[in-house]
């Protein structure tokens, strides 16, 4: 499995993902520039990561018909062919706007930016990115966003529920999913989802910030470990 991390001029979080995948996880990572229009070196089984890009999106044009950086069309094609795509935070927002994930992310209920560690419950391990996570384990991973309140039509959410597309929900430190543990007013405490084909993932929490013992925060690594383990199994299965 090879990773491609999409970078924008303002990329901060993208560089954090790059650091974790390359230096901590020791993976092969290709830096992709948002102005790239094709992804010739990537094939199914590889994984693209989008972790920021909102400022560029705003910057490239406010016209309805050009909301995205050029690379987004290539990302859409890649996802439709079955390649893994992971959107974190701003990247999750972009994947929703690009139609790769259902629903959208609204401004936090408090109308404020929120950065803190939150607790998460894994709702399914039938996906590549959660396959190695014990569902009873309460994860501690930070969020940092002003626009992370997930919203979708009721029918969409019901369908996602049935299909086990909801990956993570915010919970308290004991694993109880309740209103008090909902940091931003998100629908049904939803923190992360995947698409019906289970190859496109969107997360508001930032696992790259919780992947090193030196930071005292390592639960995020379980997501990357899951992804790599699944990829190995798939490779072996041919």
């Amino acid at each position: 499995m090879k990773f491609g991390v999409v970078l924008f001029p303002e990329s901060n979080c993208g560089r954090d993902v790059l650091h974790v995948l390359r230096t901590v996880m020791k993976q092969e990572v290709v830096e992709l520039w948002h102005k790239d229009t094709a992804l010739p070196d990537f094939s199914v089984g590889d994984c693209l990561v989008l972790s920021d890009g909102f400022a560029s999106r705003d910057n490239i044009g406010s016209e309805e018909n050009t909301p995205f950086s050029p690379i987004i069309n290539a990302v859409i094609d890649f996802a439709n062919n079955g390649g893994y795509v992971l959107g974190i935070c701003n990247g999750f927002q972009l994947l929703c706007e690009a139609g790769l994930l259902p629903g959208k992310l609204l401004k936090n209920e408090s109308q404020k930016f929120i950065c803190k560690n939150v607790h998460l419950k894994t709702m399914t391990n039938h996906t590549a990115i959660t396959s190695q996570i014990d569902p009873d384990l309460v994860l501690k991973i930070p969020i940092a966003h002003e626009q992370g309140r997930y919203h979708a039509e009721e029918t969409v959410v019901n369908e996602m529920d049935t299909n086990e597309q909801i990956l993570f929900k915010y919970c308290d430190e004991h694993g109880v999913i309740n209103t008090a543990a909902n940091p931003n007013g998100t629908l049904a405490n939803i923190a992360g989802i995947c698409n019906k084909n289970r190859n496109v993932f969107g997360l508001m929490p930032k696992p790259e910030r919780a992947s090193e013992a030196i930071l005292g925060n390592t639960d995020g690594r379980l997501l990357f470990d899951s992804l790599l383990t699944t990829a190995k199994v798939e490779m072996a299965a041919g």
Partner: protein
Amino acid sequence: MQQSESPITVETAKKLGLSSDEFERICEMLGRIPNNTELSIFSVMWSEECSFKNSIFWLKTLPREGKSILKRAGKEYPNLIDIGDGLACTFLMESQNYPSSIEPDQETGTRVSGIHRNIFAMGARPIASMNSLRFGNIESNHTKDIVKTVVKGIGDYGNGIGVPTVGGEAYFNNSYNQNILVNAMSVGIVNAGDLDSNIVEGSENPVFIVSARTGEEASCSYPFQEKTLLEATLEIIKTGSVIGMQKIGKAGITESMCQIISKNAMGMRIDLDKIPAIEVSRMLVVAKKGEEQAILDTYAEWDLSCEQIGEVTDTGQCEFWSNDEKIAELPVEMLVKGGGAPVYERAFKKPRYTKNISKFNIRQISTPKDIIKVAKKVFSSPNIVSRRWIYEQYDSMVGTNSMGSVEPSDAALVRIKGTNKALAITTDCNSAYVYADPYVGTMIAVAEASRNIICSGGIPVAITNCLNFGDPNDPEVYWQFVHAIKGMGDACRKFRTPVLEGDVSFYNQSIFEDKTESIYPTPVIGMVGILEDVDLKTTLNFKSEGDLIYMLGNSYNDVGSSEYLRTWHGIQYSPVPHFDMHEEYEIQSRIKELINQGLLESAHDVSEGGLFVNLMESAIVGGFGFQVETVETFKKDAFLFGESQSRIVVSIQPNREDDLQNFLISNNVSFTKLGEVFGNEAIIDEINFGSIEEWKRVYENTLSEKIEGK
């Protein structure tokens, strides 16, 4: 030379904020009357902000040298700290008090971002920032509104740039009701080999102004511009074609020119017609003649505009041209601080209010019967409870270097990628202490900063500062200023922490119909330390049930200037808490040794709110209760809530008790065994103060309830 239409007189100078003496001085030094443009340049360059004319005499007494200052090839770099591994660290604090008081949000953000530009103009990558904030009474609606807008302003801009806000301070006090303080600090890292030393040798080198493009992209956000300017600037430094670089700050282009050229007695010619009309995110860059293209190409790639506006000369003059006509020509030397700019040594006298302080006698303070009630009152002060309502609006973890998001330390720890080291960063100033005694209060600010770094596992290396005071022409205010500087100098000499560039902000005051009231003198200290090995990281939270709790350092019957005295007894005038520099230095050295020996499970210094608050913080973060005994020979209120300095609470595993005691006894360290980490309640002298869970709710929610009413 172009002459202005109306004659230049002392009245013109006064309108520009220059005094008649200063106007005379200008005419005398120039040997002629300046024209209007030239006079305007003087008014900027001789302003308080640029010339430090009311402070520089005393600032020069501060220690600037130390073994931590970077030296390369026989040259000293006064604002860079050698941190080994071929790396240097630079940091700076700056005031943005006035725009924040008048119109927060937009302005605050602009200036907070500006602080990072100081850092990357030196070729360093900003890796952390802090804010030191002072607001008025939290019960007032005005304060609540201003807190919301200032915090949002800092967040909106800071969060986009990708530099984490890793800590800071926020205090509330009536003295800031009309004049809040917003001080920002940025810390950066640079490869010592890449240093842009701002040596502008060789005339005819071209001068560029770099800025975000206007036009179709003008709508792009400010932090986005600042971020691209940062990345592009760090990239052009690698080309080797840059020989000088300076942020264009609040005083505009002249100040930046002078800063670049004054060090080398060069001159500069600027064509005013070529300067683009943009207000923010600007840099002045001097390139090597003939190697401009690499710089132009890089900025173009980042969609930034880079225009040549002039060139370096060997005349020692600042020249401004417009329409092929020289409209101003002034010797650089005359404009700059330490050169022609005036230096005032103001008169000072001991303020009258200090008499009220001397009258205080602790024997008049009766120990309250219901100590639990006192604890609740002190603990719920906005100056004690968690400031998470503020800091959760800042991105504190971007960059994946923040080491304290789960288990915090007294200072913020920031890992340095590619090394086994970390920086320890803190800002400190209890202005009530400084008000009570500027000399000792400022020594305490330095000492506490150092203590925070030591308790986190680091060694202090240097400080920066932001000195916030009232009107320097008021002798009572100047007395505070002079004594604060003396205290800072003495403390920095003791801790061997040289003073890097900082900032001074005067005229912070509230004006009423019949009087003017200055803010509490607030010399904020920003200190950086280094952890030679990240494994030395020491955190403040209790770790396991059964661990023993010791307090190291002397106890005193002292409640001076404590939060307890203000909140419970309503006493405004009392002496600064007990402080002895020798005692302080000794206790810090011993803590350092204990950390090196790996004996401590936690370390946390006793500060605002006293021992009670100290224990409660370690308990809340750790998720454990405690069972402790006070010492009968001290007044219980002083023992629990007094703020006498140089005390550090540590916890150890029970099987290390002999090791700890042997160490303390053989090193003559005073200590008190307080008790142990136990259960999930706070028990003091067998009285149950209630569950830690309940205290945690108060700790975490009080500030948001006060500010937002929920």
